[in-house]
């Protein structure tokens, strides 16, 4: 506290006084104790009185007028700028021998300089001068501090020639840099040189400086390899002299105050050197490095031991074998590692746990079970550590959790370890407990201390008890960490289940488990500790009735659940994650569901945390695909409760993956879980009644209402895209010939037939139909699109059903049928009832064409049959061209597998096949293959390529899943949601959190400027006017990132099992064709080549449809625009003007709008966001010829 005498310095002095002004008279207590040995009592007394006076003065001043106190006082003082501070340092450096200079440096200049985040190199010469000439410890301490900061300002972020680091005070520094002209590169060698020679100085009086120099030097480790080499040399040099602690240890250990001088110096040097070594890059191959680090475990200084263990465990991660060999006897009873168990340093014991884990699991040490079990035993002993940090680390290690890269097997083994192994720990520090399951060796107590012998305990029981007591803690970090440990337990358990290594039920586990324990007990312990053994088994079987793993877990989970009551949302978040991980696929998840539902009703949840939980659902799914349906049900709660806070991309990806994972029997439920949200009543404004009910939608504010609507859109789209998959109903696999359906035109019969044949699809259809009516405009558009997708992909009678529905929709006729479902949203829906006419008509035309072609085909086939004629090539060609044309058309609306899809119906398959074979047309490229188009293929008929007909043998689900880029390949895609999921699964993610815009009360560092650079460090005269802006900051949020929702519907579209970016179109799809998936499927015609092949015709040739469809050309490239037709304004529209008729009178509301009279003919030029830009033949009521009119008011023909 030598320099702590500055208690007389007030804030004003600190902030504003100019050190070049008169010496501060207010610090009489700052006795010039250059050696830092003031008389304690005296100092304390003065300090108390002074600080009291000081605070009294301040509070009095504040009471007068807080706003004006500062400026008034400041006016008397000179401002302190960075430049002035720098100048002061230069001045005082020249007079460093004077006490007054030293005092000012210590009390004024250096503390203020610390305000700046970096120090510019032009100060270095003065600092070095002080370093050489000044002997005042306080000054020197600051000098080392600033030298270290200059060294640490590496090129990456430091004061390069181009400027300084972007700290809030950069402006101040920028000036200096311009003036100074000294670069870091100039000064670093000098600093390093001077500090190095000091670090090598062995004179005793330089001891403290030597340590400080070493510390500062280590900041330079990232500068250059030369400096690094020098550092290694210095550190190893010191360690060579002092590293061998063996003989010194005996005297000096635990004996610090009275230790002799020599050993104290040695201890200090050991600490300084190993601490510096820890900051240097790891040198795993270097035996000397390892040797020095291992020596460090025997050092006296606990921090030194901590660092050396950290180094060793880092090396052990790469090379456990050498570390184990080098550690040798240290791990044995009585060795240094055993002593560390009782070392008073938490992080040292944490490193010890990691070290033990790595060595005891190392494959390379398989031949040395003795070594492994030594380390294993230390690890298990750490489970009893009094520090939660250490104990939890040991639990995580036992569980096989080390970083995020462990393999599933390792985690599974971890769970088995935890549930099956026994800790036998006589309390003597050096008694080794052996684990039977590992090597079968009996325990060999070396130094049996008869005093207290703990009875053997199953690990699981120890861990459970420990966790339960931790969950009763009041400390939030402890609760958070405990929940995290439970989460990791869940992960290991899931891994064990997934591998089937743990196939026995935890309830029946009881028997094997108890037997196992009994076996161990009787076998190993009876002779040795009969009493303990008896106690142990009575504990297991007797006292608490049945302690099964299941019951232990159940009681733990009970405690975990109650932790949800913690007021800290992050603790609750971790608890929810833990619960998700501990949930097993076949258990009831009602409890979890209600917990999550009630949790999500709490508005305190930050969206980042919710998304984290959503990602946890992904991870849980990855670990146990059986959980798909459960997880979807949980995800649904997120969708309905907090639509505005979650990342819809991630949610949709979850839908998609879970749908695939749900398997054949779960698909229906999975689809229901996603789309049941469509059945829920829309949120009633202001109603908060259903907050905790799962089946209510809550959207309390406009933002979440919008998000909810987007989510509904997404769900509708998802339903359309994936209903066929979920229902396993594909047109190209439908057994029903089209003719059958045509005969079922009676709507009622059709519906009955449809729902009896495939309830999943029928249900989806009903939902979509309802959405086509009742949703908002956006939802209706998506619904219609989904319907046409469904129609195209499904066989009969669904297609016909949709056809009829769309037809009626276009005419406005069905409205009455559905009127009871209709929930008015206040929009005028137009004469057609939906305003979707323009959207529907091209869809109807496709279906029309398909049915017409089917009809004709039926007719032709009948004719040919009747006349017993063969099909001529010409006829086949015509048929084939129709087939191709329809395929192209259909592909405009949704993805279909071109090789399999038969727009003219199943009966056409044979004929088309004949034609293809005859003309050597590959199914994938069709007529657009240049070879086919130019007839070349006919010429090279002989060289028929090998048939690509393996498709038929492929399970359709698999094929479709693959088509949708699912499976492994999916995880490599570049969609942002997948990135997020992958990143999460990989445990990455240290990047900064986004801060939501609202409620930011923080004053981001702009105000730091205000406070320090302006308010405090600069003149107050200039500041007075700005005073109001200084305290409370400008509200612009620096960290606000708009939630990504707004982007979801613009480009990336929705997840679909047919891929949201239809692979069939090849639009930017090919680059991400997964190598893995590609090779797996390279032989089938679903392969990349076929999809690629189909892409070219679509892009290069305009679709055969003419004008009305032109505006749908954007569907060619769904990636570019998923605009559902409402925002299409592609250039083609103007090439082929459309005409329309005004349906109603419209009165222009704005300058650019155009009034219309019902019945007027208009030419539609353009469409933007629900508005047409139209031209009329003659001026109307408002005298204008052209302008904007709402789309709904015009019936485009």
């Amino acid at each position: 506290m030598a320099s702590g005498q500055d208690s007389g310095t007030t804030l004003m002095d600190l902030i504003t006084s100019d050190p070049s002004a008169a010496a501060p008279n207010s610090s009489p207590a700052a006795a010039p104790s250059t050696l830092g040995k003031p008389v304690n009592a005296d100092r304390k007394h003065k300090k108390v009185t002074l600080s009291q006076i000081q605070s009294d003065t301040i509070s009095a001043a504040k009471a007068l007028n807080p706003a004006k106190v500062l400026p008034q006082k400041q006016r008397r003082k000179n401002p302190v700028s960075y430049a002035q501070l720098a100048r002061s340092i230069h001045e005082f450096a020249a007079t460093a021998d004077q006490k007054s200079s030293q005092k000012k440096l210590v009390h004024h200049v250096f503390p203020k300089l610390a305000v700046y985040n970096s120090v510019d190199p032009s100060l270095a010469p003065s600092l070095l001068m002080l370093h050489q000439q000044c002997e005042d410890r306080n000054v020197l301490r600051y000098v080392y501090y600033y030298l270290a900061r200059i060294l640490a300002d590496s090129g990456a972020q430091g004061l390069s020639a181009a400027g300084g680091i972007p700290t809030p005070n950069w402006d101040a520094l920028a000036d200096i840099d311009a003036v100074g002209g000294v670069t870091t590169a100039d000064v670093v060698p000098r600093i390093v040189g001077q500090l190095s020679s000091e670090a090598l100085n062995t004179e005793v009086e330089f001891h403290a400086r030597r340590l400080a120099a070493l510390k500062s030097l280590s900041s330079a480790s990232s500068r250059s390899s030369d400096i690094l080499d020098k550092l290694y040399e210095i550190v190893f040099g010191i360690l060579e002299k002092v590293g061998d602690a063996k003989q010194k240890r005996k005297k000096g250990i635990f004996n610090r105050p009275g230790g002799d001088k020599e050993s104290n110096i040695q201890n200090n040097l050991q600490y300084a050197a190993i601490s510096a070594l820890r900051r240097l890059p790891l040198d795993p191959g270097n035996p000397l490095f390892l040797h020095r680090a291992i020596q460090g475990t025997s050092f006296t200084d606990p921090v030194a031991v901590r660092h050396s263990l950290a180094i060793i465990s880092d090396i052990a991660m790469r090379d456990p074998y050498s570390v184990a060999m080098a550690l040798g006897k240290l791990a044995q009873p009585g060795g240094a590692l055993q002593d560390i168990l009782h070392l008073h340093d938490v992080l040292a014991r944490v490193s010890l746990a990691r070290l033990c884990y790595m060595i005891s699991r190392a494959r390379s040490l398989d031949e040395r079970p003795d070594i492994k079990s030594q380390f294993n035993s230390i690890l298990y002993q750490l489970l009893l550590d009094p520090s939660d940090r250490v104990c939890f680390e040991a639990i995580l290690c036992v569980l096989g959790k080390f970083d995020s890269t462990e393999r599933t097997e390792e985690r599974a083994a971890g769970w088995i370890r935890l549930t099956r192994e026994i800790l036998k720990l006589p309390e003597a520090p050096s008694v080794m407990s052996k684990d039977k399951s590992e090597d079968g060796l009996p325990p060999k107590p070396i130094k049996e201390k008869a005093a207290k012998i703990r009875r053997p305990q199953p690990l699981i029981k120890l861990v459970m008890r420990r966790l339960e007591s931790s969950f009763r803690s009041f400390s939030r970090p402890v609760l958070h960490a405990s929940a995290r440990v439970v989460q990791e337990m869940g992960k290991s358990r899931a891994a064990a289940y997934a591998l089937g290594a743990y196939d026995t039920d935890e309830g029946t586990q009881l028997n094997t488990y108890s037997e196992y324990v009994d076996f161990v007990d009787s076998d190993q312990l009876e002779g040795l500790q009969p009493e303990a053994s008896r106690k142990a088994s009575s504990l297991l079987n007797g006292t608490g009735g049945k302690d099964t793993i299941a019951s232990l877990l159940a009681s733990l989970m009970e405690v975990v659940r109650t932790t949800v009551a913690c007021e800290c949302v992050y603790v609750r978040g971790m608890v929810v994650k833990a619960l998700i991980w501990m949930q097993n696929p076949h258990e009831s998840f009602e409890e979890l569901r209600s917990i999550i539902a009630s949790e999500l009703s709490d508005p305190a949840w930050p969206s980042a945390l919710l998304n984290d939980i959503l990602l946890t659902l992904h991870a849980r799914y990855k670990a146990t695909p059986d959980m798909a349906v459960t997880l979807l049900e949980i995800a649904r709660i997120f969708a309905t409760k907090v639509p505005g806070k979650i990342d819809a991309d991630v949610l949709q990806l979850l839908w998609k993956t879970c749908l695939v994972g749900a398997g054949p029997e779960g698909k229906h439920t999975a689809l229901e879980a996603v789309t049941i949200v469509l059945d829920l009543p829309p949120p009633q404004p202001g109603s908060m009644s259903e907050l905790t009910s799962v089946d209510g939608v809550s959207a309390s504010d406009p933002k979440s209402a919008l998000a909810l609507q987007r989510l509904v859109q997404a769900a509708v789209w998802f339903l359309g895209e994936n209903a066929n998959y979920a229902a396993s109903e594909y047109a190209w696999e439908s057994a029903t010939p089209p003719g059958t359906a045509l005969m079922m035109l009676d709507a009622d019969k059709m519906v009955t037939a449809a729902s009896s044949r495939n309830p999943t699809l029928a249900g989806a259809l009903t939902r979509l139909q309802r959405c086509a009516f009742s949703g908002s405009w956006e939802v209706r558009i998506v619904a219609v699109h989904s319907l046409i997708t469904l129609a195209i992909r499904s066989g009969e009678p669904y297609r016909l059903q949709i056809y009829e529905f769309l037809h009626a929709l276009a005419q406005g006729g069905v409205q009455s049928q559905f009127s009871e479902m209709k929930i008015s949203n206040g929009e005028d829906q137009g004469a057609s009832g939906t305003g979707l006419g323009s959207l529907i008509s091209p869809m109807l035309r496709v279906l029309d064409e398909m049915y017409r072609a089917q009809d004709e085909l039926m007719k032709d086939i009948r004719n040919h049959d009747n006349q017993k004629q063969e099909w001529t090539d010409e006829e086949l060609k015509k048929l084939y061209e129709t087939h191709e044309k329809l395929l192209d058309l259909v592909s405009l609306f949704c993805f279909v597998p071109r090789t399999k899809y038969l727009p003219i119906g199943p009966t056409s398959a044979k004929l088309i096949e004949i034609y293809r074979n005859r003309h050597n047309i590959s199914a994938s490229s069709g007529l657009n293959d240049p070879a086919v188009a130019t007839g070349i293929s006919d010429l090279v008929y002989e060289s028929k390529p090998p048939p690509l007909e393996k498709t038929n043998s492929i399970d359709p689900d698999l094929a479709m899943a693959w088509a949708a880029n699912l499976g492994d390949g999916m995880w490599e895609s570049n969609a942002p949601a997948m990135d997020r999921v992958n990143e999460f699964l990989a445990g990455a993610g240290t990047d900064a959190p986004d801060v939501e815009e609202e409620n930011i009360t923080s004053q981001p560092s702009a105000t730091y400027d205000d406070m320090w650079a302006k308010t405090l460090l600069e003149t107050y005269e200039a500041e007075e006017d700005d005073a109001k802006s200084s305290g409370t900051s400008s509200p612009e949020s620096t960290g606000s990132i708009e939630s990504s929702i707004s982007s979801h519907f613009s480009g990336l579209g929705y997840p679909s099992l047919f891929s949201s970016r239809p692979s069939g179109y090849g639009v930017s799809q090919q680059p991400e064709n997964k190598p893995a998936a590609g090779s797996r499927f390279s032989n089938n015609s679903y392969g990349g080549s076929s999809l690629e092949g189909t892409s070219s015709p679509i892009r290069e040739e305009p679709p055969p449809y003419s004008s009305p469809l032109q505006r749908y050309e954007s569907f060619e490239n769904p990636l570019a625009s998923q605009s559902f037709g409402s925002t299409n304004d592609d250039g083609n529209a103007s090439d082929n003007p459309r005409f329309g008729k005004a349906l109603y009178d419209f009165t222009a509301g704005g300058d650019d709008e155009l009034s219309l009279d019902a019945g007027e003919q208009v030419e539609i030029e353009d469409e933007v966001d629900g508005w047409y830009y139209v031209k009329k033949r003659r001026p109307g009521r408002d005298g204008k010829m052209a302008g904007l009119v709402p789309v709904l008011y015009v019936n485009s023909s």
Partner: protein
Amino acid sequence: MLLAVLFANSDGNILIERFHGVPAEERLHWRSFLIKLGAENLKGAKNEELFVASHKSVYIVYTMLGDICIYVVGKDEYDELALAEAIFAITSCVKDVCGKPPSERLFLDKYGKICLSLDEIVWQGMLENTEKDRVKRLIRMKPPTDV
């Protein structure tokens, strides 16, 4: 890795910040995030009551000491509990330097020494010295063990 140590006053002005291993462009986000956390939770908090938060695989422990909010951010071995150790070392040193839980003014009075203490406690992204007596010695240029 101890990614960040940050001191702020109750208005959310940052008094001291030390980042390690955090890209410059992310620091702004961290600042706002931490300050927002503090603004939402630290009001009325007891001295040295520990609060916890997490973001992805990063942990945050923060507390209130006098008028000063203290935040520490870490990952990997610096989990919630290790950060609690770190923040304990920091608060006890600050209390030691200031003589009591500091007002903002007192904190600024002792600004230089607090920076030096912090330099002994958290050094290059690692927790270094945790005992306040030892830190006290080191900031006076005395070796950890008296010679």
